[in-house]
Structure formats: structure tokens, C-alpha cells
């Protein structure tokens, strides 16, 4: 993985020193709350319901075991012994003390991590494919490009005070695992007919209160022009994005109000002036960055492991786990393993410090000391020999991280919600848990197959409810918490936004509502038809009918 050089390290250290001094001046009354707020946000620090919340970047989701141990140490020393993995490849600590945050940032800097621009109206942490470098469907490894973008966007002096936050996702694979179409910019690697590498660039996508699927604004951008083109997009947005109303300040509103065609013209005109300039990425630089992301020293293994195959035949629970939590690897004899952070009774995405240490040890033993975090709030060991799968599974079971539910109904994407977040209108964690408890029959869950259930505690949509096959949104009605249900959302190549099925429900009705929706699917599905395919074929009407007919 990428290792800092002296320039990288010095930049991050200077940032820590800068924020230490800003915090000191704030506490001394030399900076007002309004002056300090954007500064602390751009260092990941929110003020939440109970305490500050610190959001730490995990650039493109890649983490070493050393870094994970540091996160465990921070959770133990400065927080309440756990962290929360978010839907944007960040990790959040919910209970730090403001006075201690500079110290936490200094600890992070020691392991080449930071919280720079994880919040605020600036370019946020760039997300990418959790299977980068190991997926079979990769056109180009996205990691050198995302690292390039991380560097470019870090303290980019022109774009520190944008109209609103700005999120970029980059994937190098044909199958989108990064939700590129619901980002301010989403770039997907493509190969031209001549064999050149480039990016298909989408802009103006996003969730929140105005969900919009991104518009492809350029089918083929030569890869070396990536930063020039991003500069052009950002400059048009910075100059013309609305600043009079924060609910209309995202780039998606600018694209809509200008029309995509006019927006593209403006971006292309700006790009023409930047094209070929100093921001053009030399091949040497990509080669330098790529050298940080070479394959680990894989062993030459047989295509499949006899021991693993016999364990699969012997153990139903193991084979069920393998069916959902293990994915194909580009390399013979290896596998990609997803550790579920969606065990019933544990808030989705949460991990205790002790388990962080245990996972770090597993990464060292089975996966070359590295792991990835996914935007679905799970962890990935990307390079596990198939012959080790059974031993790994046994250990994960002990840790409560082997729930065989990746991509299933109980693999719920969920924001921290009203229990923690001061923006939330409603709690989200207890609703997720109630649904997980209702669907506790593993065989039934596996029979249902792929169903993405996404849950947000407010319109800001951190739980990505708009692109959940089943989306749940917490709303406030006269001071009490209600839940609106939508169907038909999807992320990935066939991104779509869910449609609201009707009036919202009380919290205690939610497990019944989900059960009725699932019943309709089970009754009306065609052979081999997934939940989302059935919703697309049937539309929401039969689901709506069932849900409201029986709700008395």
C-alpha cells in the first residue's frame, strides 16, 4: 500500500500543528464558534448530541494491520472502546474530548493517517473499490489514481471553501462497487478502442434531500487529464454553485439548474484552458504510485484447495458462510473474504477495540497484513489462501464476525441515527436490530438472496436509503419518530432511486412492514429472479397494496 514520503509526512504533521493551535485559540476565546466550526469540520470534528465526533479518513478504504491497531488504541485511550465504520470508507469515534483531538490526530499521523477534509464544504475522502487490485473484472487498478486524487485534493487551496461538501468516487472495474453514480464526481475506468486507459466521468449525482443519479459528462477522459478535468469541474462549481441556500448548494443542483448540457459546455471550456498544463499526470508519476500497489508475494497455489473443498462438503454453516462472504480472487488458490459487521445486536459498522486488534492479527496471519473497509460498512481480507478459509472462519465465528449475510437482508447499511447524530430525525440502529431479529432464520435469508436494505435516520441519507432495494428513512412528525419506506433503489452499474410506497410507519410496525414486502416477493418471484428484479418487473403497487391492506 501507499507509504508516505517526507513531503507527505511533513504536510500531515503541519496540519496537526495547525489544528492544535486553532483548538488552543478557540479554547482561549480567540476564535469564535463560527470561525472555528469550518476549521474543525475540515479536520473531521463534529459536535454531536452527546460529545464531539471525530471522523478519520481511510483513503480508498485501504488499511494496514498497523493502522487498525492504532485505531484500536485510539478507541481505547480516547474513546469508549469502539469505532464506527461509515458508508464512505471512514471510521468515526463518537466520544473524544475536544481538547484531546489534536493528540489523536498526532497519533494518526504516526501511522500515516489523518482526518483532513472528512467533513466541511470541501473535497472529501475519495472512495474506491474495496476489491481493488484483486478483482477479476478490473480494467485498471484504481488505487494509484485514488492516491493521486487524495494528494491533489488535500489542502487544495482553491477549493477549501466550496458551496457545499464534495464527494468523489473512483473505480477501475467494469462492475461498479463504489456507487459512482451517486457522487458529486464518479469516475469509472474505461479502455478506448485504441487500448488507451481513460475514465468515464459522471457528475452531479448524490443522495440527501434531492437524490439524483449522476450524469455522464464525458464518455472518455484520457487518464493523464484526470486532475485537469477535476479542476475544471470544481472551478465551475466553486464559482457558480449556489451559496444562498445550503439545501441547494450541491453540484447536483447546479447541474440541474444549468442543464447538464450547459454544465458540460462550461466544464469543457475550462478544461480546454487547463488541458496539457502542469496538472497533466506524467506516466512516471503513475508508475511511481503504482509501485506502491504491486501484488503481495502470492504463493503458486492450485486453483482450488482440497482441504477447503472437503470442509465445504462437511460443514453446512461453513459452506453457507463461504457462499455469501467469500468472493472469487484474480489469483489461483486465493479468495476475498468479507467480515460482516452486521451481527444482530451490534450496531451496523461498529467494531470494538479488542476486535480491531483481533482483525489486525488475522490480517497479518492470513492476508499480508492489509485489509479494506467497504462502503457497506464491512471489512475485507482481500488475499486469503483458500486453504486457510476454514481456520479463518472458525476464528471469525469466535469473534462474532462470521455472520453469513453479506448482501442479504440483514446486511443492513445504517447511519448512527438519533442515538448519536444531532442531525437525525429518528433513531436508526434499533430499527435495524428489530429487522435483523425478525429475520433470524439463516436458511430463509439465503433463500431470499440478494436484498439491500439501507436505513437513514434523516434526509441527509448517510445510510444511502435512496439506493437501497428497500430504503428506510427516519422522519419527524410532530416530535415523534416515523419511518418512510421506498422500494426499487439500487447502486452499481444499474443505479436507480427507490420510490416511496406511501405514508410512514411507527418504529414498532417496521419488522411487519418488511416481512410483508418480502412475502410479496416470495409469492410472486419467478425462478432465479432477485428481489430487485422482481420489484422492477412488478413495480411497487403489489407491495404497497399488501403493506397497507393489512396495516390496521
Amino acid at each position: 500500500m501507499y507509504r508516505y514520503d517526507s513531503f507527505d509526512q511533513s504536510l500531515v504533521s503541519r496540519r496537526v500543528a495547525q489544528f492544535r493551535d486553532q483548538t488552543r485559540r478557540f479554547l482561549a476565546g480567540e476564535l469564535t464558534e463560527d470561525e472555528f466550526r469550518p476549521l474543525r469540520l475540515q479536520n473531521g470534528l463534529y459536535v454531536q448530541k452527546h460529545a464531539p465526533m471525530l471522523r478519520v479518513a481511510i483513503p480508498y478504504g485501504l488499511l494496514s494491520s498497523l493502522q487498525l491497531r492504532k485505531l484500536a488504541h485510539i478507541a481505547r485511550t480516547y474513546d469508549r472502546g469502539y469505532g464506527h465504520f461509515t458508508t464512505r470508507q471512514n471510521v468515526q469515534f463518537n466520544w473524544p474530548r475536544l481538547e484531546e483531538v489534536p493528540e489523536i490526530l498526532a497519533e494518526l499521523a504516526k501511522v500515516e493517517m489523518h482526518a483532513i477534509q472528512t467533513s466541511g464544504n470541501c473535497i472529501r475522502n475519495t472512495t474506491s473499490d474495496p476489491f481493488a487490485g484483486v478483482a477479476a473484472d478490473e480494467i485498471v487498478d484504481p488505487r494509484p489514481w485514488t492516491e493521486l486524487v487524495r494528494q491533489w485534493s488535500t489542502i487544495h487551496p482553491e477549493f477549501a471553501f466550496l458551496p457545499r461538501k464534495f464527494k468523489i468516487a473512483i473505480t477501475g472495474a467494469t462492475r461498479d462497487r463504489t456507487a459512482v453514480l451517486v457522487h458529486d464526481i464518479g469516475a469509472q475506468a474505461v479502455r478506448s478502442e485504441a487500448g488507451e486507459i481513460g475514465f468515464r466521468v459522471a457528475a452531479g449525482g448524490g443522495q440527501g434531500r434531492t437524490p439524483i443519479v449522476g450524469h455522464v459528462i464525458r464518455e472518455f477522459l484520457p487518464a493523464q487529464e484526470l486532475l485537469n478535468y477535476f479542476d475544471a469541474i470544481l472551478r465551475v462549481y466553486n464559482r457558480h454553485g449556489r451559496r444562498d441556500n445550503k439545501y441547494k448548494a450541491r453540484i447536483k443542483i447546479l447541474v440541474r439548474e444549468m442543464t447538464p448540457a450547459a454544465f458540460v459546455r462550461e466544464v469543457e471550456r475550462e478544461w480546454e484552458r487547463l488541458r496539457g498544463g502542469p496538472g497533466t499526470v506524467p506516466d512516471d508519476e503513475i508508475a511511481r504510485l503504482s509501485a506502491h500497489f504491486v501484488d503481495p508475494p502470492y504463493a503458486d497455489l492450485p486453483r482450488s484447495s482440497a482441504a477447503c473443498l472437503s470442509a465445504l462438503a462437511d460443514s453446512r454453516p461453513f459452506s453457507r458462510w463461504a457462499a455469501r462472504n467469500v468472493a472469487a480472487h484474480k489469483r489461483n488458490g486465493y479468495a476475498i473474504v468479507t467480515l460482516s459487521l452486521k451481527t444482530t445486536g451490534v450496531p451496523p459498522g461498529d467494531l470494538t477495540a479488542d476486535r480491531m486488534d483481533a482483525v489486525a492479527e488475522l490480517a497479518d496471519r492470513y492476508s499480508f497484513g492489509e485489509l479494506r473497509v467497504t462502503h457497506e460498512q464491512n471489512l475485507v481480507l482481500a488475499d486469503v489462501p483458500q486453504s486457510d478459509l476454514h481456520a479463518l472462519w472458525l476464528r471469525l465465528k469466535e469473534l462474532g464476525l462470521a455472520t453469513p449475510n453479506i448482501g442479504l437482508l440483514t446486511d443492513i447499511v445504517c447511519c448512527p441515527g438519533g442515538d448519536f447524530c444531532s442531525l437525525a430525525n429518528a433513531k436508526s440502529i434499533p430499527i435495524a436490530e428489530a429487522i435483523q431479529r425478525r429475520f433470524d432464520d439463516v436458511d430463509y435469508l439465503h433463500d431470499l438472496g440478494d436484498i439491500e436494505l439501507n436505513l437513514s435516520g434523516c434526509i441527509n441519507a448517510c445510510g444511502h436509503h435512496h439506493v437501497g432495494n428497500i430504503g428506510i428513512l427516519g422522519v419527524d412528525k410532530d416530535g415523534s419518530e416515523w419511518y418512510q419506506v421506498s422500494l426499487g433503489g439500487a447502486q452499481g452499474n444499474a443505479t436507480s432511486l427507490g420510490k416511496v410506497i406511501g405514508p410512514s410507519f411507527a418504529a414498532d410496525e417496521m419488522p411487519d412492514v418488511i416481512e410483508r414486502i418480502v412475502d410479496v416477493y416470495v409469492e410472486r418471484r419467478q425462478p432465479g429472479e432477485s428481489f430487485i428484479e422482481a420489484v422492477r418487473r412488478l413495480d411497487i403497487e403489489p407491495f404497497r397494496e399488501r403493506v397497507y391492506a393489512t396495516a390496521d
Partner: protein
Amino acid sequence: MPRLIRHGALADDRWTLLREARSLADVPAHGPVIVPLALWAAERSALSARGDVGVLLAPADDPAALGEDLATLPVIAIDFPTFVDGRGYSIARLLRERHGYLGELRAVGDVLRDQLYLMAECGFDAFVVRADRDAADALAGLVDFAGVYAPTVRAPQPWFRRRVAAAAT
């Protein structure tokens, strides 16, 4: 106490900023002044003849509107009505990089220590620090960092090119 930082040091400010000037009647007959773009555009010949008149750009103004005056204007001020309005950073870069403006480029308005480094990278060489803040203290903000990755006005080559150059020497 001086509020102006110019070329990295405190300096006396001889320029008077006339934010509200709407017509020539609002402009004193003598002494260097900075007037809003609208007034400059309306009274260009009278004002440019003086040689001691600069222009104030608001965040929504188009720097290209200054046209060939950019070659002779001694001062352009860019207004930050609030420090979280970042449009002035793009305007500054366009003036320096696209329009070749070489005169003084000053930040005025809600100008605070913690943004000075960013402003300097975008091409500002003068800063009128907000009246209730100590400009001497704000000087420290200019050296918060020693370079960033992206190409900037101050360092037109991005770090990935500077790195190669540094390694070669």
C-alpha cells in the same frame, strides 16, 4: 496599527477602499482609491487617467470583465464578504494564471489568519486583515504549510513535478 500584510510583512496602507462608491461624486479627487467594478466600468476613462485607482471585485464578478485594464491596474482587491465564501480563490487564480495580472492582488473583507496560506497559494500578495484582529498575529498563518500537492499560483508545478526536479538537483 497596520492591518495590511504585503509581501509577507506588515505595511502601511495608502489605499482607501470605497466599497459604497456609486458615482464619481463618491470618489475623492486625490489619493489612491479602490472602487467597485461597476463604477470602474462606468467611468473607466476618467478613473484610469488618474493612475492611482484600483478595482474591487465581488465574489460573483467576472475577472475577464477587466479586459486590457489588467495590464495597467496597480491594485485589484477581491472581496470576501464572509471567509467561507470561496469564490475569491478561483477569481485570484484566473487573474494570475489566465489573464496574466501582475499587479497587487489583495484580499479584503472577512480576511483571517487561518485562510492566509490558501489565499497566498492562489496568488494574493496583500491581505487587509479584519479590523478586530491582529495583523501581526495573522502573519503566522502565511507559513502554516510549506507547499501542497496541487499546482498553485505560487508553485505552478504540482508536487509530482517539483519532486522530480528536487531529486535531479
